Structure formats: structure tokens, C-alpha cells
């Protein structure tokens, strides 16, 4: 069963909380006693989507596991801003080993818990898109293939932000990064073949794969909690805008995540054992320009030397997603 939004009660399940909902219908984030797994004082940039996504996800996992949770973290922004000596922001047992091995480290932890008979202790691994879709990809696939009892969470901000905004295999076409500058006849990142890691995860037939965004908290929490109720390898990719890397205002983080979903640029869905079981429908479909324009990384597509044909290609990607995942409400697809 997919996430069942509450349709009314003023804001329904669209807001973080809702005083009109029954206690058991409320979000983890609305709870006064939420675990704040990643605490104040971390050094993430203003408006960091990853810091937010991590708290959303790990708090939900903490809630579902009754606090019996261990996290393995890949190198990256999340690791650097949360644990610079002498201070850690994490409130749960947490380990950082390397950039490319978080899935394997998590496998080791899960194995240790199994051998010690601690079935109650659950394991998550987390990393950015670079650590997941590029350098950690081998370990990720191995963890999937063995169906190790690990929930892997990828915080997708579409680039190597920690090292200074370079291109990753999750960087969208046309986007400016430090290694795909907006110069030459085809400025920005190439229109490559793409690397859809959620689909690759599905190809492993693992029990659960989902995508989510920081703009849809309730959907995100639902997916994390659902994943935590399962055993075996599970993968959730959370779309977390990066104000710094994207050249966006710090207050636009959630809006951009919302627009990524509403344009179809980032399809939000879930899949079990390799098959899509539900999609989060677009509520108010908008053209990709609305999503692209607030981001400086796409600024070269607009203005004096505009590239409308490139915008059209991006729109075609969004349209393809919409068709493929049937993202429009029933009857509109």
C-alpha cells in the first residue's frame, strides 16, 4: 500500500504537523520529543537540504526502530559537517569509514548484529550521490545482491558538493558544475545516458526501493518507516537541493525539491521486489523553467544567450518521466 495522504483537515498531511490529526497520524518531525538524530551546531550551509533530509530520514528510522539504530556514513558533506573534531552532531551510534564503502561497512555492522543475536538493532548506511552512484556503487551493488539487512539512504544533491561542486553521475544534463562549466557550444553537463540508481537498485530485485524529496516529508517518513519494517537490502534516494552548489537561495531548498517533483524532473515512487508499486502524483504540474530558473547552475540557459532548445530537452526528460511513471493524477496521464 502506498502512502495515503490525509486530504483535508486544513493542510492535511501537506504540512509537517497538523494539530487536527490524531496522534498516530502525525509525523515524526512534528513530535516535540523527536530524536533530532543530527543535532544543532552542525556546520552545514544555511538551508542545507542534506542536513534536513538526514534528520527527516534518520529520525524516522529511529522512531521505527525504537532507537535501536546504527548508522554508517560515507565521506561527504554530511560526514564533514556533522563530525569535525571535537564535536559530533549525531545522537546515535555512527561510523564514518571511507567515501566508497558505506554499504559494505553497514553490511559488516549488520553481520555483527546478526551474529550477536541483536535482531532488534537495525542498520542504515548513508551518503551523498557521489558516494552512492559513483565511488560507492560497487559496494552498494554488492550489498544489494547479497540482500544484506541494510537500509541505504542516498542524499541526492546532484554533484560533489563537499569538494567544490563537481559533476557526479547524478548531475543533470546542462547543469553547471566546476567540471562542466557553461562554456562552449554545449554549455554545462552533457546529455549523457543518465544513471538511474533507483532503477538499478530495482534490477537487483531487492525488497524495497523508493525515492523521496525533502519537500514531501510525510511521504519520506512513510517510506523510511516502511523500509525499516522490512528486512534485507533497501534503498531510498532522497532529493536534497544544495543552495551552494545549485546557486539557489537558502530559503528555496524545499521549494526547489517541490518543483523537481512537480515538473517531473525527479519522479517520486516506490518499488517492491523490482516492481513499481506506487508513485507520488504531481499536484500542480509546472514547466521545467520554473524549476530551472531559480538555480544559477542553469542560468546560462536563460537570458541574453539563452538556450531554449536545451530547456526543451530538459522538458522532454521531465515529460518522459511523467509518461514512464504515470506521474499525473488518474485520468491525466
Amino acid at each position: 500500500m502506498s502512502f495515503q495522504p490525509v486530504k483535508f483537515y486544513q493542510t492535511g498531511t501537506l504540512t509537517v504537523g497538523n494539530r487536527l490529526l490524531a496522534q498516530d497520524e502525525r509525523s515524526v518531525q512534528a513530535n516535540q520529543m523527536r530524536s533530532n538524530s543530527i543535532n544543532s551546531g552542525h556546520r552545514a550551509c544555511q538551508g542545507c537540504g542534506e542536513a534536513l533530509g538526514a534528520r527527516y530520514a534518520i529520525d524516522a528510522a529511529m522512531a521505527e526502530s525504537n532507537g535501536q539504530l546504527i548508522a554508517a556514513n560515507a565521506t561527504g558533506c554530511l560526514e564533514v559537517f556533522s563530525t569535525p573534531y571535537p564535536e559530533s552532531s549525531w545522537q546515535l551510534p555512527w561510523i564514518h569509514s571511507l567515501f566508497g564503502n558505506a554499504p559494505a561497512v553497514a553490511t559488516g555492522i549488520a553481520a555483527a548484529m546478526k551474529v550477536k543475536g541483536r535482531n532488534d538493532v537495525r542498520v542504515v548506511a548513508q551518503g551523498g550521490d557521489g558516494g552512492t552512484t559513483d565511488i560507492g556503487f560497487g559496494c552498494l551493488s554488492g550489498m544489494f545482491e547479497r540482500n544484506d539487512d541494510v537500509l541505504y539512504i542516498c542524499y541526492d544533491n546532484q554533484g560533489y558538493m563537499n569538494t567544490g561542486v563537481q559533476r557526479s553521475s547524478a548531475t543533470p544534463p546542462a547543469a553547471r558544475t566546476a567540471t562542466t562549466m557553461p562554456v562552449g557550444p554545449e554549455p554545462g553537463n552533457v546529455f549523457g545516458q543518465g544513471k538511474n540508481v533507483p532503477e538499478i537498485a530495482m534490477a537487483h530485485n531487492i525488497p524495497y526501493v523508493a525515492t523521496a524529496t525533502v519537500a514531501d516529508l510525510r511521504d519520506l517518513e512513510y517510506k523510511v518507516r516502511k523500509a525499516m519494517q522490512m528486512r534485507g537490502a533497501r534503498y531510498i534516494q532522497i532529493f536534497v537541493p544544495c543552495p551552494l552548489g545549485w546557486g539557489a537561495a537558502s530559503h528555496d531548498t524545499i521549494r526547489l525539491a517541490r518543483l523537481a517533483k512537480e515538473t517531473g524532473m525527479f519522479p517520486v515512487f516506490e518499488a517492491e521486489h523490482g516492481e513499481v508499486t506506487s508513485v507520488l502524483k504531481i499536484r500542480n504540474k509546472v514547466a521545467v523553467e520554473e524549476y530551472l530558473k531559480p538555480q544559477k547552475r542553469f542560468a546560462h540557459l536563460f537570458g541574453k544567450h539563452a538556450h531554449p532548445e536545451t530547456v526543451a530537452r530538459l522538458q522532454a526528460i521531465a515529460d518522459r518521466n511523467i509518461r514512464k511513471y504515470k506521474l499525473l493524477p488518474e485520468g491525466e496521464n
Partner: protein
Amino acid sequence: MLKQTEGSKAVAEAIALCRPEVICAYPISPQTHIVEALGEMVKAGELTPCEFINVESEFAAMSVAIGSSAAGARSYTATASQGLLFMVEAVYNAAGLGLPIVMTVANRAIGAPINIWNDHSDSLSQRDSGWMQLFAETNQEAVDLHIQAFRLAEELSMPIMVCMDGFILTHAFERVDIPSQEQVDAYLPPFEPRQVLDPAEPMSIGAMVGPEAFMEVKYLAHAKQMQAIELIPKLADEFKNIFGRDSGGLIRTYQIEDAETVVIAMGSILGTIKDVVDEMRAEGHKIGVLGIISFRPFPLEQVRAALIKSKRFIVLEKSLAVGMGGIVATNVRMAVTGSGLRGFTAIAGLGGRAIPKSSLHKLFRQAEQEELEAVTFVDLDWAAVNKQLEREKQTRRSGPIAENMLHDKGIVGVSAKFG
């Protein structure tokens, strides 16, 4: 229990007696037989509780071990050669995090050219990784060192490699005394980690440390290895008390008391060297042997003490610091700094090249006469080498070296066929 068994099998049995809780396996010759045997034991339910994980790479193998060790499970893996290099990033990380992982390195050459045979290049490349490295001379010692290794690693919370010569030991059938479970249990208490990932007591392991504390962290790793210098002999003594065998320790000497010339080596070649020394002793040569068991930590004082009464030493090593010479030799020279001892380096057995007694006789006699260059390449085919050097001088595109040389040596018929 005495057994005639393969080295890998014996080591696997010893590992099993140490009650490992997580074993990560990735195939690479010549360590495969060890993890295969362990895998079978786990699958058969003979080794339990234990998780045997078939990982997708050596990098993953070490990473899984990092995770399981940090979560408080006694963790083991084995590798060699390219496999060790592929996991290097994680090797350093395990040491940096202070995780007491035990890893067998079935020593093997490093490519290119790819070569599956024994030398010490692989583990010696990791001499600065923060791991301890113990070298076994025999399969019995390999068995014993693994048991001591768990104890040592866990007491110090530092990882350790037990190095045994690939094929020469791993695939050799020898008589080995496999200890009983009671003996091992008496020697090796359950793993009590210094730090553990536990929801009851959360902590953050693996922080980013800047210039303000990085040197201290590194010094503390060094200090731990210095503690190991003290601990290793003690653990060997304790081992002797329970198992009744002299095994382990930092160094082992042979016929050294009155030796004017001391041959220094690590691993299985020590057996051949001792035979040669016996033969030379019979002819009246004052020659002895110093075997180094603990390469990391390197027992500088013990090596110096063992050598100081001699006049010269020759380090016979199965490794090459390209562009410099010996690796072990450099360490030994450090140990005898200022002593006035003459020292020679002999590089031998790279990529599994046989080291015949005849060559050693010749080498050691030259050493006694101090007729050696500082670095000697034992049994090097100078004709082939010089021919290639000449070729390269004349032609820019002189073709692949290895193939040319094989051709020169008549091993490959017509290299062009493969070109």
C-alpha cells in the same frame, strides 16, 4: 593434534579455533584455500556463530570487516597481492580507526606483470599503514601466529596482518600441530572492544580531524606499535605456557652467538638459509641467521642487539624498493645506525623465482668477503636485462619488456605472435 595438512587448511582451522564472528571472503590466489575452508566450516555449522560473507571485492572485504569489528564482532579476512592493493584505502582506515581486524596475507608479487607467485612486495607495501605485520616461517608458525594475532590486535585495538608465503606455505602439506579449542580459549578471551557501535552508548567513530589533533592521533598509533614491541614477547611466552611451543616473538636467531656474518630474512626462506648456514658452519664459517617475525612494529633494539657482536650482515629479502633497493634492509640499517657494521642487501625470489641453496652459498661467501655491491640481485639474468637495455637505447618502441625477455630466454617462441 598433529596433522599432515595443507598450510591453508591448518590456518583455517586455527582461525576457526579463534571463534571469529565475521569472515569476509573474496577470492585471490594464493589465500583462497583458507577462506574456502572457513566458508565450508561456517556453512556446515561447525563454526558458529559466525557470518561468512562473500563480498564483491577486497575493498568491500576490508570495509565489511571495519563495520563488523566496529560493531564488536571479531573479524577476519584474508588477501594477497592485487587484492591487498585494492583494499589499501580501507587498510589504512581500519588502522586509523583502531579496529583489531586480523588478516592473513598470503604473500604474493604485485603486477604488472601479473604474477601469482610468492614474494613480499604486497604486505611490505603496507608497512606504513598502521597495521602490525608478523611473518611466519613455517605452517606451524602460521597457525600459532594467527592465534597470537587476535590476542595482540584486540589488546591494543590495532589491526594485524599475519603474513605467510604464498604457495610455499599456503599450499604446502606439512606436519602441523593443531591446538585444541580448550587451549585456544584459555589463551584468547572473548573480544572486548575498546569502542563499539552500540545504541545503548552512542558515539561517533571516524571524525574528521584537522591539523590541531591529527599528529597526535598518528603518534598514538605509533605509540601503540611501540607497546606491541613489549607485548609481542610476552604473548609468545604465554603462548608457550599453554601450547608448549616456542612460537612468535619479535625476532628469532640461529647460530648467531659467534657469527661474524649474519643473514637476515623473513618468512619461509629462513628454512633454506638455515640449511645453508649449517652447511657453511660445518665448513667453519662463522655465520648465523636472524629471522624477523615482527616486521611491524620493527624491533630496532632487538635487531641491533642481535647484530652488534657480528661484523657484517646481509639482508636477503623478497621485496624491492624500486629506485632504492631493499625494504627490510633499510629497516635493519636503521637499527644498526652508527655501529660500523657492514651491511649488504640481496634481492631474491621476486615473483616466485626459486632461491636455490647454491645461490645462497655463493652469496653468503661473497658477503663474508665483503665482495658484494650494496644491493645484489640474486640470480638475475644479466644477459636478458642488458639485451633489453640495449634495445631500449636503440629503439624508442622497443616492445613489451616482459615479453621480450621471455623471448630472449626462449620461453616464448615468437613474441610478435602475441603482439
